[in-house]
C-alpha cells in the first residue's frame, strides 16, 4: 500500500505561517478575494458619494439662471459636474468590476490566486490613495478646469487632482494587467481562450480595452500637468476655461464609455443560462460578440480637443462604430432571449435578483447603445447636447446593475453569508429606475436642444425644466439603489459569527446557494 506522510497542502500552510488578523490582514494579505472585496467596498462607498454629487448638480440645474444656490458658484458647479463623471469612471465602475473579477475569476479558472497577488494589493492601495487625492483636491478647489477664473491655490489644487487621477489610472492599469495575465496564464492546460467562462473572457477583453484607453488618458494628463506646473500655463492647462476637462471628456463619451460595460455582457452570459439551468447555445459566438463589443469600445482615437476645428466625430468611422455597437448588443440580447426561451422561465415566479439584474443590465445597455447611435447620426446634431450625459448615465447604471447581479450570483466568492434576495431585488429595481429616469430625461432634453453643460449656451424651456425635475428623481433613486446594494453587501461581508445566523464555511454556503438555485 502506498502511503504519504502528509498532504501537500498541509506543508504549504505550515510554511506560510499564521494568517494575520483584523486590519493587518487587509494590508498584508495576498488573498485575491480580500483584495477584491476591498476594491468593491471602497468603490461602493465612493459610488454613493458620487451619486450624491450627481443629485446636487441636478438640483442646481432646476434653475439655470442661478447656478449658485447650492454649490456656491459656477466654478463649484463645474467641479462637481466633472467630478460626477470622472468619479463614476475611475473611482466606481472600473474598480467595482476589477474587485468582482479579482474575487471571482481565479476560482473560475481553477487557480488559487491571481497571477501577481502582491501587485493586486499594491494596485488597490495606489488606487485608494489616488482616489482620496482626487476627492480631497476637488473639494479644495481643484478639479478639471473652471469656468469663471481661478486663484493660485485653486490652480495648485487642480494639479493635485491631475496627480491623483494619474495615480488612479496607473493603479487600474496594474489591476487590469494582473487580471489579463491571470486569464491567459492561469487557465487550465488545454482550455483555449474562447473556452474560458464568459465573465473571465469579458474581463480579459475589458482589460485589453482599458489598456488601449487609460494610457491615452494618462498621456493627456501628462501634458496638462506639465503645462499647469510650468510657470504660466501655455495652452493645455489654462485653468480659467473648461479646456482641461475638454481634453478628457472623450472618456465619458462614445465609444470609450462602452468600455465601462463590456463585463456586463460576460456577467449576463454566465448568469442567465446558469440560473435557467441550461447551456448557452453558440457559446463561441457569444464570446466573439463580447470581443467585438470590446473592439468597438476602444475610444482614444475619437478625442476632438486637439483636432479642432476638424472633428473626428463627423467622420464615417465614428458614426459606423456608434451604429455597430447597437447591432452587437442586440445580437447578444438575442442569444440571451434564446436561452430564456429554451430554459425554464416561469413567469408566475419572481426571478432572482441575479437573473433579473443581469438580464436588465443588458437591456439597459442595449438602450444606451441605441440612443448612442442616434447621437452620432448627423441630422440630429446631438454630439454636444445632454444626450451625451444620457448615454453615459445609462451605461453607468447598466454597469452598476450588472455588478450587483454578479455579487448576488457569486456571493460565496465575495461575501460571508448569502445576501438578502429582497434587498437585491430592491437594489436592482432602484438602480434600474434611477438609470432609466436619468438617461431618458437627458436624452429627451438633448432632442429639445439642451446642451451638455446647461449653464452654457442657449437653453431653457418648460419641457426641459420638467425633464430636469425627472432627472433629480432619477439621481435620488440611483443614490438609494447604491445605498441598498452597499448595505446588503456590507452586512454580509463581515466574517461569520460562530453562533450567528448563516454561520458556516464557504463550502456550506455554496451548498446553500446551490440548493436555492
Amino acid at each position, binding site marked *: *500500500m502506498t*502511503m504519504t506522510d502528509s498532504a501537500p497542502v498541509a506543508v504549504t500552510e505550515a510554511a506560510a505561517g499564521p494568517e494575520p488578523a483584523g486590519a493587518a490582514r487587509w494590508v498584508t494579505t495576498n488573498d485575491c478575494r480580500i483584495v477584491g472585496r476591498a476594491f468593491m467596498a471602497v468603490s461602493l462607498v465612493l459610488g454613493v458619494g458620487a451619486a450624491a454629487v450627481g443629485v446636487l448638480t441636478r438640483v442646481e440645474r432646476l434653475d439655470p439662471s442661478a447656478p449658485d444656490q447650492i454649490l456656491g458658484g459656477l466654478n463649484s458647479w463645474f467641479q462637481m459636474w466633472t467630478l460626477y463623471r470622472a468619479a463614476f469612471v475611475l473611482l466606481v465602475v472600473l474598480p467595482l468590476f476589477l474587485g468582482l473579477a479579482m474575487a471571482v475569476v481565479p476560482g473560475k479558472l481553477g487557480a488559487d490566486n491571481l497571477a*501577481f497577488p502582491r501587485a493586486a494589493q499594491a494596485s488597490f492601495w495606489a488606487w485608494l490613495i489616488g482616489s482620496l487625492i482626487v476627492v480631497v483636491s476637488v473639494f479644495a478647489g481643484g478639479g478639471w478646469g473652471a469656468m469663471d477664473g481661478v486663484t493660485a491655490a485653486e490652480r495648485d489644487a487642480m494639479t493635485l487632482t491631475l496627480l491623483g487621477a494619474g495615480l488612479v489610472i496607473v493603479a487600474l492599469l496594474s489591476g*487590469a*494587467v494582473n487580471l489579463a*495575465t491571470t486569464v491567459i*496564464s492561469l487557465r487550465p492546460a488545454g482550455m483555449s481562450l474562447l473556452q474560458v467562462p464568459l465573465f473571465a473572457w469579458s474581463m480579459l477583453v475589458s482589460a485589453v480595452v482599458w*489598456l488601449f484607453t487609460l*494610457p491615452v488618458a494618462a498621456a493627456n494628463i501628462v501634458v496638462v500637468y506639465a503645462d499647469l506646473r*510650468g510657470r504660466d500655463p501655455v495652452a493645455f492647462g489654462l485653468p480659467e476655461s473648461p479646456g482641461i476637462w475638454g481634453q478628457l471628456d472623450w472618456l465619458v463619451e462614445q465609444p470609450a464609455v462602452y468600455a465601462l460595460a463590456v463585463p456586463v455582457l460576460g456577467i449576463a452570459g454566465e448568469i442567465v443560462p446558469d440560473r435557467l439551468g441550461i447551456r448557452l447555445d453558440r457559446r463561441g459566438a457569444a464570446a466573439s460578440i463580447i470581443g467585438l463589443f470590446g473592439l468597438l469600445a476602444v475610444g482614444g482615437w475619437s478625442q476632438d480637443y486637439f483636432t479642432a476645428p476638424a472633428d473626428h466625430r463627423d467622420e464615417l468611422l465614428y458614426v459606423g462604430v456608434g451604429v455597430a455597437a447597437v447591432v452587437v448588443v442586440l445580437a447578444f440580447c438575442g442569444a440571451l432571449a434564446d436561452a430564456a426561451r429554451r430554459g425554464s422561465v416561469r413567469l408566475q415566479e419572481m426571478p432572482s435578483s441575479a437573473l433579473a439584474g443581469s438580464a436588465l443590465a443588458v437591456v439597459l445597455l442595449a438602450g444606451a447603445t441605441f440612443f448612442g447611435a442616434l447621437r452620432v447620426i448627423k441630422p440630429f446634431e446631438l454630439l454636444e447636447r445632454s444626450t451625451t450625459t444620457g448615454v453615459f448615465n445609462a451605461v453607468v447604471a447598466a454597469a452598476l446593475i450588472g455588478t450587483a447581479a454578479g455579487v448576488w450570483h457569486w456571493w460565496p466568492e465575495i461575501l460571508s453569508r448569502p445576501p438578502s434576495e429582497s434587498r437585491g431585488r430592491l437594489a436592482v429595481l432602484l438602480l434600474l429606475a434611477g438609470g432609466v429616469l436619468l438617461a431618458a430625461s437627458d436624452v429627451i432634453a438633448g432632442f429639445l436642444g439642451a446642451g451638455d453643460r446647461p449653464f452654457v449656451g442657449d437653453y431653457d424651456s418648460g419641457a426641459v425644466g420638467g425633464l430636469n425635475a425627472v432627472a433629480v428623481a432619477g439621481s435620488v433613486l440611483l443614490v438609494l439603489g447604491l445605498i441598498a446594494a452597499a448595505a446588503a453587501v456590507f452586512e454580509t461581508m463581515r466574517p461569520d459569527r460562530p453562533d450567528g445566523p448563516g454561520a458556516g464555511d464557504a463550502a456550506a454556503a455554496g451548498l446553500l446557494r446551490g440548493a436555492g438555485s
Partner: protein
Amino acid sequence: MKTASLPAAAPVRLRTLMVGTLFATAATFIGFLALVSLYVQQRQQARSGGGEWFPSGSIEMGPAGMMMATLLMSSVTVQWAVQAARADDRPHGWMALGTTLLFGTAVIVQFSFVYQSTGFEIDAGIAQLLFYAVTGSFIVILVAAMAFIAVTALRSLIGPLDTDRGHAVQAAALFWHSVVFCYFLVWYVVFITK
C-alpha cells in the same frame, strides 16, 4: 510501502511574468505613442499656420544620435543577458545587466546635457512644453526599465539563473527593447524631423 511526502506537481502554466510584462509594455507603449501623436499633431498645426516650431539651431543632432547609439548598444547587452540566463551563466548575466544599466544611466546624463544646451523655458510655447512632456515621459519610462533590470539582477544574485529567473530576464529585456523603440520615436520625431 511508504514514500516521502511529495508536493503536488506544478501545474503547467504559460510564462506568467512574460505575459504580464507584455501587457504592461503594451500599455506603456500606447501611452507614449499617444503623447508622441499629440506632439506631431500640434507641430503639424503650428506649421500649417506658417509658424516656427523650434527656434532654428536650438536643437543639436549630435547628442540625440549618441543617445540612439547608446540605447542600441544596450539592446545588444540586454540580449546578452538573456543568452547568459539561458546558459545559466551568472557572471556574464550580471555583467550584461550591469552594462545595460550603465548605458541607461548614460542616456539620462546625455538628456541633462540636451536640456542644458537647448535652454528651453517650459512656458515659452507649445513646442517647448511638449518637448519636455515627451522627453520627460521617456526618462520616466527609462527609469522604470532600469528598475526592472536592477531588480532582475538582484534576484539573480540569490541563486542560479534557473527557468523562472531566466523568464524574468527575458521579461526585463522585452520591456527594455520597447524603451529603445520609444526612444527611436523621440529621436525621429523630436530630433530628426524637428
